[in-house]
């Protein structure tokens, strides 16, 4: 995140941003960057971009970087961020929106074969189905 | 060319002051309109408006303060309520509803005042003379 980034009106109101808004239905502009979402996120240590920065990047239109990020795939949809947000931003929906942006461009993130076999045999159905619901369209 | 006759009611605090500003700024507008100064747009009674139509007015304009700016807190909303229902009713009376207009014009909106008056005058001009028979 040290590289200079160009900010422009074109980027801030790009089609990608609109599509994300359509999928998620979230008004990201209510965010005032208190960071409570990141502070409360149980998986933030595993993320490359913390949730509050994700929202900031949506505000600035950096969707191309977000779709490359691991963050949406680390998110477990526990909704803690949404509940904690003082401004009513549904961050969890934004994460879902980012996953969908990737999945709808014909890219599947999950793969049964990648799972450790020993673990796979033990896993309850809800773990597997839950995971695939979020990683395969 | 048909010269419409337009009666207007302007609230003292906003629209009449806006009209004064248009004058002080030496803006010009169509002379077809003649204003009556009222304390508040809420004083304008539909009876006065129909009086105007009955006596041959081709258009009636009411000017009040913008919502939230009324000198009397809520008078402009009273005007709004009355005009909304009145527009519906005059349509049934066979008076074109566009002959009646309510506009919010503030004391600072001299320019807007002239634009509203000119635009309204032209609209009424297009509508032509109001048609009625005296009973």
């Amino acid at each position, binding site marked *: 995140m040290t590289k200079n980034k160009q900010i422009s009106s074109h980027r801030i109101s790009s089609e990608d941003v609109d599509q994300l808004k359509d999928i998620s239905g979230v008004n990201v502009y209510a965010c005032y960057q208190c960071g409570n979402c990141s502070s409360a996120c149980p998986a933030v240590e595993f993320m490359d971009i913390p949730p509050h920065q994700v929202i900031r990047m949506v505000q600035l239109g950096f969707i191309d970087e977000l779709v490359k990020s691991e963050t949406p795939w680390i998110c477990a949809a526990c909704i803690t961020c*949404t*509940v904690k947000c003082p401004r009513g931003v549904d961050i969890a929906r934004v994460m879902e929106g980012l996953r969908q942006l990737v999945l709808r461009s014909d890219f599947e993130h999950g793969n049964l074969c990648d799972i450790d076999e020993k673990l796979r045999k033990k896993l*309850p159905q809800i773990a597997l189905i839950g995971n695939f*619901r979020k990683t395969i369209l | 060319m048909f010269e419409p006759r337009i009666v207007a009611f302007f609230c003292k605090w906003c629209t009449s002051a806006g009209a004064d500003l248009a004058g002080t700024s030496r803006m010009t507008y169509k002379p077809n309109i003649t204003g009556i100064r009222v304390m508040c747009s809420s004083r304008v009674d539909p009876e006065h408006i129909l009086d105007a139509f009955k006596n041959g007015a081709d258009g009636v304009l009411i000017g009040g303060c913008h919502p939230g700016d009324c000198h009397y807190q809520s008078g402009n909303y009273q005007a709004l309520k009355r005009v909304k229902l009145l527009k519906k009713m005059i349509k049934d009376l066979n008076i074109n509803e566009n002959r009646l207009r309510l506009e919010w014009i503030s004391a600072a909106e001299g320019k807007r005042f002239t634009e509203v008056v000119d635009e309204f005058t032209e609209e009424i001009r297009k509508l032509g003379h109001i048609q009625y028979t005296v009973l």
Partner: protein
Amino acid sequence: MQLSYYPGCTLKTDAKNFEKSALAVLEHLGVSVDELADWYCCGVCFSQTRDNLMQQIAPVRTLVKAKESGNRQLLALCTMCYNTLKRSIEFIKDDAEKMETIHQFMDLETTQFYGNEVDVVDILTLIKQIGLEKLKNSIVKTDAGLKIASYYGCMLLRPKEIAIDSPDDPVIMEEILASAGCENVYFPFRTECCGSYQIVNEPEIVKDRTRKIVGSAVKNGADLMVMLCPLCYFNLDEIQQDIQKEDKSFQTIPVLYITQLLALLMGLKPDIHDFSLHSIDPRPVLKMKGLL
């Protein structure tokens, strides 16, 4: 009281002990449930997209079945199912257009569902509804002296619209356990996520969470940890052993479904518990406390 019951996939397999103990507890409290004749997968994780109504078909199908059953209430034991079904209702209710679209996708279902005809209920709320006094009276082992850490997880508390209690500071499990004669242990991580389905992709997250959650419960002096979610259960029970392999100082704690504990306190026959399904064997503690 008559209500419909929706088991969901895991309660028929890995969480058999949850289903058996829950139904036994309810029966003991005088409530019988009708399992939906023909139920479908709930969809597991509620789709949070606004624009894709296809995702809602799975839960709506089940809700249609529930409406057809004629019972107003639908019990969902699995918290994932509870969350998905309840959020589906929130998403579609009062929106005729959405419902219309969803119905167009469903050829076999003839019943129209509008969103308000079925109440999805979880077992904690149901027990409170039956009455804490009644619960108290049904307890036979009143002097077990158990210190219990109640773990809520996410699905019953979030988002706010479907929360069964305060998302920040819930008390319903503690209330129930206090009525059942247990001592409650408050620990700061009782509402924090266990890592959920990320066990599949990123088991490290779950390990990290388990270490925090279990560690905190142990530190605050709990004998047992109870919960309701089969996925939390798997994550917190199964992973404890993995952590202990890496870190000998890590102290484990047995994990039970809250209904298992209630059944034991009610003196119901122990064969419903399937203790073999537990990774951390709770029997030593239970024996020590005189519950087995």
